[in-house]
């Protein structure tokens, strides 16, 4: 006789994947088109990871920020249920407000998170092509005090040379987790690589020794970036051999 009968619930563990997407005016055109395309195409892959992973299911939430910020849905969705609504680009770059909004949702009582028991640390992917136009430092300070954020896998994608990599480094905590892309194809590929790698590593129970999940993600994405034409780790920007090409 099993003690795990119909009166006992054993829910699947959960990992939350957050996209924070810059939809300011400078993203208009091919950049925002590539982001929309890449996320739509990566969602079925995330679903596959979620379905085939015995450790955890993956839920997705997306926050766009321009003049202010907005969640695409007011609750996280399972990857297979997330219907992507193409985001449009216009306005400023309220990254500080986005940080505060993310901090609001990185909580159990008023946000998207569940009990820490049974949850994995979230993965957060930040995409931006510019510099914040609001009080980024204040927003980030609040976010950095959040336990979920402290534990999260954090990766940033700098879209083009105009992206403020210093800001993105402050967000991720290390410039090794900031990847720069210089063309549409590289942007699409890096979104796929970062989303898949973060989900695969983030939703696994076991970790490789003392290496943090963030370090594992960085290492794998860095390896992948070597094979993406037009992408590079931000630490190599000074020696960049790529020029921006967004046409």
């Amino acid at each position, binding site marked *: *006789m*099993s*003690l*795990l*009968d*119909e*009166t*006992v*619930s*054993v*829910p699947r*563990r*959960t990992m939350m994947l957050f996209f924070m997407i810059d939809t300011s005016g400078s993203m208009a055109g091919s950049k925002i088109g590539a982001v929309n395309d890449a996320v*739509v*195409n990566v*969602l*079925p892959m995330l679903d596959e990871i979620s379905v085939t992973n*015995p*450790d955890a299911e993956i839920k997705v939430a997306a926050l766009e920020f321009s003049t202010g910020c907005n969640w695409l*849905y007011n609750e996280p969705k399972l990857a*297979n*249920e*997330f*219907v*992507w*609504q193409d985001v449009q680009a216009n306005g400023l770059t309220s990254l500080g407000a986005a940080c505060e909004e993310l901090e609001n949702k990185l909580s159990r009582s008023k946000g998207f998170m*569940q*009990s*820490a*028991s*049974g*949850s*994995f*640390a979230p993965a957060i992917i930040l995409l931006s092509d510019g510099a914040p136009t609001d009080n980024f430092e204040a927003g980030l300070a609040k976010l950095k005090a959040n*336990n979920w954020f402290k*534990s999260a896998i954090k990766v940033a994608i700098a879209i083009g040379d105009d992206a403020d990599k210093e800001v993105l480094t402050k967000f991720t905590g290390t410039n090794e987790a900031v990847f720069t892309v210089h063309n549409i194809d590289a942007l699409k590929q890096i979104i796929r690589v970062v989303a898949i790698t973060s989900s695969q590593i983030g939703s696994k*129970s*076991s*970790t*490789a*020794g*003392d290496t943090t999940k963030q370090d594992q993600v960085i290492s794998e994405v860095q390896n992948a970036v070597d094979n993406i034409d037009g992408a590079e780790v931000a630490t190599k920007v000074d020696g960049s051999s790529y020029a921006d090409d967004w046409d």
Partner: protein
Amino acid sequence: MRCFDFHCQGESHKATDKVCQDYSYSHIDEDGLAIAVVCDGHGGKHYFRSDVGARFATEIIANNVREFINNIDETLLVGQPFTQQAAIQTEIDRQDFRKERPVDNAFRQLFASIIGQWQQRIEQHAAENPLTDKENTQVEEQYRKEFQEGYKLEKIYGCTLMAYVSMPRYWFAFHLGDGKMISFDQDAQWKEPVLWDDRCFLNKTTSICDSDALNEFRYTYQGDGGFPIAVFLGSDGMDDSFGEDTNLVNFYVRVAKSLVKDGFEATFADIKETLPVLSKRGSQDDMSIACVYDEEELKVALPKFILWQIAITKAGILKVNNKILEATDKRNDLEEKVITLEKDKIALRYAQNDIERAYTEKQQLVKKMNVLLEEYYGKDYVPYQDEVGEQPKERQQVWRMDDHPFRVHLVWVEIE
């Protein structure tokens, strides 16, 4: 009083050929001492002897507790009301210092003794047991060097610990690190007897191997005649398998009911069978459990345990009913207008999905409710019903996607 304990290798440890790093212990002594201990050795390459560290910690706690109760002036504890003490580190953070009484000094000596003896024991073990070939190949050079130089040995053996101790006139419990301790009173009400430490979050935990471990112990005592009727100690593999605390508590209630109805032997056999399955379905981690309980009190509280389960199931059904009503309102609002915007199409699809999912969830909860109602009222029980009811079947609605499954081009199809 009775007790049991069990620990087993986790599913992920089987996959990576890693030993079980949990250890558990329980015993009822002739002098009335009841003790339960769970220690959870840290995972990760650096902690490659944490299974040994957990075993040592368990043995040392058992010995030190016996010495403590033999030597302590009982008047320090007898008569004391239920008192919870946070870790000193937490008191420092909050600038709220509460450990000023002799009993607190006594506990501090107990904890210092546990740490001190544990350190001695691991140093001795390290001296007597040089790195094996397997450890040599598995461990990174940095850690190998530290081990050989006798540096940071405590890290290599690191673990968490928790213990519950009951004597005829008082009880106390202490905890360092994660995992969960749950106690039940005569009304089948549960609580975490020892205060939680917020520094234990996700995969981060305080530990006996921390340099300020002595300041990280938190503890509880009571000597005014109030005793829990059952106390369960579980490593984090247990609570990670259940997510919300209510699910973990519900499992312990299930165990408590089994102890009353099926008896000790059958229940303990079930626990040994269940924990590996639970690891596979849940956390994948090593699992350990230790329990001290009062058999007679559990018998008396049995109906209250069932009522508690009925109450939480009812709360779950009410929550799901609200979801059904909200999603139905949303769907009805959207159906009343001519949908042209993609956004509205998506919202309608989500509303329909939410309704479907909520009804499925409700079906499971109602099934559970009926099992519990039968258990409480017997075969003549009245099956659960409410005004929201089951999902109506008069019309099926299907969204068919005409493009990419994750794109928004949707076609609405109605089936009469």
